[in-house]
């Protein structure tokens, strides 16, 4: 005979549900506690590590880059805030803050030459020149990190990749695919001609002239009519920095 549901049955079911819930909560709490414990262990280990290797982190760019990578993997951003233990412990926030300011300064002061596009390599060289008073080497990785922090300011600092080179853009100019291809082509010699662009990229003459003229208008290119062959050359200071056009530099 089928039992009809009664008060007793309902109560039993409710009690069972309650117990299940309690058990679930317990398990979840246990897990959370364990997680918290693991995290705090990990955190203290990371702190210990950072404390122990503070010197290496601030002196050795390669080590610093690996430390950042490790932090990124576990979701810790030592640069997220200038307060808190990372900054206090390592002074690392100040380090990047300082580089960031210097990068902005370099980008602005070289803008008349290069139209606001500078190769990461040149930026790094200029940065090192500026910081020669302190011994800490600054790597390209550090530059990239500092620039990524500058994005927060919405000032349009961006790193673009052209061919094998990384360029840092400090003006809001949008470069399209055509412009990028020309910059890539120009990397070999520092300049490009209309002929070359047509031939190497199989473009029509109009397309090549159009793209080159845009780059010229944006201040990213300079013309050179002085060569013996009479062909106009378009030079790009961002891929062939003026300061290194002579190899025997003082």
């Amino acid at each position: 005979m089928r039992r009809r549901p009664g008060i007793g049955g309902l109560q039993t079911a409710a009690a069972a549900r309650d117990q299940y819930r309690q058990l679930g909560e317990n398990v979840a709490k246990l897990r959370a506690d364990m997680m918290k414990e693991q995290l705090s262990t990990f955190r203290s280990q990371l702190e210990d590590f950072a404390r122990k290797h503070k010197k290496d982190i601030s002196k050795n760019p390669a080590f610093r880059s690996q430390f950042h990578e490790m932090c990124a993997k576990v979701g810790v951003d030592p640069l997220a805030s200038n307060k808190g233990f990372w900054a206090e412990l390592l002074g690392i926030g100040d380090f990047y803050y300082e580089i960031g300011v210097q990068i902005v300064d370099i980008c602005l002061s070289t803008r008349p030459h290069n139209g606001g596009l500078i190769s990461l390599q040149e930026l790094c060289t200029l940065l090192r020149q500026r910081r020669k008073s302190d011994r800490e080497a600054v790597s390209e990785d550090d530059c990239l990190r500092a620039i990524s922090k500058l994005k927060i300011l919405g000032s349009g600092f961006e790193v673009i990749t052209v061919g094998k080179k990384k360029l840092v853009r400090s003006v809001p100019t949008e470069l399209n695919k055509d412009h990028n291809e020309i910059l890539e082509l120009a990397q070999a010699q520092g300049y490009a001609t209309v002929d070359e662009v047509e031939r190497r990229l199989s473009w029509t003459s109009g397309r090549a002239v159009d793209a080159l003229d845009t780059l010229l208008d944006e201040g990213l290119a300079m013309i050179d009519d002085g060569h013996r062959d009479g062909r106009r050359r378009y030079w790009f200071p961002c891929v062939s920095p003026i300061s290194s056009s002579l190899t025997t530099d003082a």
Partner: protein
Amino acid sequence: MQKLGDFKLPHFFNYPPYFTLQPVRDTREKQIQLWKELILDYCRTQKIFVIGLEEDFPLFSNSVIERSLSHEARQAFISALVSDGRAEWLDKGHRKCLILWHRIQDWADIILHFVKNNGLEDSVMTVEEIRSGVESRGTELEGIDRTILMRALKLLEQKGKLAIFKGSSTDDEGIKFSV
């Protein structure tokens, strides 16, 4: 770094497009600015007072990169100096130009300084003595261009600091200081 004698040339001097007058305004302004500084700097250190646009001037060509400035470009750079008051055309055809790395007013101040330093406040000197006398040796006045010197002296004369008179025995002009 490339050098002209003992003069250190700036980096842009080896970058070919700087020898072509740039069509885009912002770029051209920067280019002209750099050239103005270079020309003034070079003339100051080498004591050059006059540039002839059609003559060989060391800055107008760079054999290392095989580039030289077109006449148009030379004209543009020097004209920019003229409008800054740092140069003056010597002829209507704009072929020769006086380079004023010190403005005439500054030259006048240098002369006054020179007079005071040497206790010449009430003395008489010839123009040639100012340019090549013992007192001026090693000062900025040594070998100063005569045109510039006369302009500065005339400015001082207007201010009543001196009188210019024609000498009786020589054909050089004499200066009576009354500082």
